[in-house]
């Protein structure tokens, strides 16, 4: 088994004439913390969507854990261990924080219709286990106090934490975070960033889209820069920071 956890080849997606993603070859290694950056409209979220199968590519191949997932459905890819969050948080508004987490961690078997009618002692034990794990994660993310609140009542930053918590309930191998720090106050952002670094140290491969360049530079082991759907630079944070093409992409050129 190769060290590449995620790999895309010749991935292209256009929207009505506009090239959203055009990547010849890109891969991500196990245990690395990689940030994907680039100006607005560079195709970062589209790339996430394609890899997590929420959008269909025009052509190209995608591999996760050496398995071809090019035509897989989102939920199947998630079950393989690829967990993603969304730019605009998708918490379950009319469910409590605890329910959000327990749902996430609950197995298919536990969720089944028949299992739910005949509640056995083992399923009760399973639910207890889920609850304990949920509280552990809530404590870790400092949202334990909100466990019985409806998710819609949470602040923007707390919702991001909840989405992260939900992802963690699934023991992800590859955690794809879409702008995890967006709209989060600076203190919380710092805590969150540290948390993400910890997760990486624990062995989770992390792929992060972020606009907060300082944060990116601080914790990333590797940075990939997208502009107009293409990879214009990749390497260590220092390499990328000094790369002319990157500077140009961000400052923008007037002639498009």
């Amino acid at each position, binding site marked *: 088994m190769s060290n590449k956890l995620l790999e895309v080849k010749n991935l292209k997606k256009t929207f009505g004439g506009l090239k959203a993603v055009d990547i010849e070859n890109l891969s991500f290694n196990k245990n690395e913390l990689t940030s994907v950056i680039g100006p607005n409209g560079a195709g970062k979220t589209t790339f996430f969507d394609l890899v*997590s199968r*929420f959008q269909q590519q025009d052509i190209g191949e995608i591999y996760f854990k050496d398995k071809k997932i090019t035509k897989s*459905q*989102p*939920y199947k890819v*998630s*079950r393989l261990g690829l*967990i*993603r*969050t*969304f730019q605009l948080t*998708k*918490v*379950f*508004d*009319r*469910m409590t924080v605890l*329910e*959000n987490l*327990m*749902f*996430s961690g*609950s197995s*298919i078997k*536990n*969720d*089944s*219709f028949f*299992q*739910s*009618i005949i*509640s056995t002692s083992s*399923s009760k034990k399973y*639910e207890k286990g889920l609850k304990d794990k949920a509280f552990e994660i809530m404590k870790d993310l400092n949202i334990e106090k909100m466990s019985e609140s*409806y998710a819609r009542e949470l602040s923007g930053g707390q919702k991001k934490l909840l989405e992260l918590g*939900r992802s963690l309930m*699934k023991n992800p191998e590859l955690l794809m975070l879409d702008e995890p720090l967006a709209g989060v106050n600076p203190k919380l952002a710092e805590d969150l960033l540290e948390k993400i670094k910890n997760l990486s140290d624990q062995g989770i491969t992390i792929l992060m889209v972020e606009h907060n360049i300082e944060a990116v530079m601080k914790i990333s082991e590797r940075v990939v820069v997208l502009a107009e759907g293409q990879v214009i630079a990749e390497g260590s944070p220092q390499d990328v920071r000094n790369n002319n093409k990157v500077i140009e992409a961000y400052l923008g050129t007037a002639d498009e």
Partner: protein
Amino acid sequence: MKISSKWITTILLTFLSIALVFVLNPDGQLRILANLLTFAGIYALAAIGLNVHFGLTGLLNFGHASFMGVGAYVTLLLIPHAAGREGEINENGLPFLAALAIGIVAAALFGLLLGLPAMRLRGDYLAIVTIAAAEIFRLLIRDLESITGGVYGIINFSDALQKYRPVFFDEAVARLDLAPAQIWVGLLSWLTVFIVLLLLKRLSASPWGRALRAVREDEDAVRALGKNAVWLKLQSFMLGAGIAGIAGVFLAFNYGSVQTTIFVPLLTFYVWAIMILGGVGSLTGPIFGSIIFWAIISETDKIASLIFENADGQQLAGVRFMLVGLLIMMLMIFRPSGLLGKKEELLLNVK
């Protein structure tokens, strides 16, 4: 169960609407009440099924009458009955419970059939598919006359259920000067309502129920968390369809006959109005919604004939349906939580 203001309002309104019926009908009040409560029980059951679709899972089903119809027709065709213009008699049949079980499964399978094309797509598509399917169902029933009796329908099947009436029941009912056959259907309907509610109470608090609520909130997030949203929706759809099937059977036994004019869109709209009135997502909402709705609707004809002097029967019915439409609209706009729905679970901001 704490006594909150919405419960007080609900119970008050229920008594008021029944009182309205009594006031407008000085004679035969017990019989009218019995009739009202029987229909209310049947429709409450149907609304409970719809609530599984819409309240629990957020599915837009506008063909509910066809699920009721499938349950009814399949069950009736399996018990002794007479069908068609000639009243062709089929003497052989299964015992009632066996036929009912098959009818429920048939309704659930019909739900699966309808759900398959639509569940992968957005909610609006399901609405359109269910309306279309209900129309196809209606046309099939009408045209497959050799099986379903077409416009002449099916009759002479009541015995399969009525023969289970205990003697003491008949005596008690006779003393009240009521029709035992109808009371029997009413009793069984309400019994089923309570059994189904117990089942659903357990299910909504269970992991399965939790999963459906998550689907209702955000399907994409559900998928991103490794769950098969489409299959979950299909399961919910089948359950609600099965419940509707039972309601359809009871409706048939209440009428004593079925034909093409029963399982039509208007039936679906009634059930929708009742569900919204009772409170979307509330388990017991359909019960009160149904009673209040029937009390008011049964009196609209009298009110309508006061307003319009020369109205014919069809136009009087028109008033009734106008009110149904208005009720649905007003509730959705001003009080989508209905009587007993949870305010926190208001539909207003679900996109």
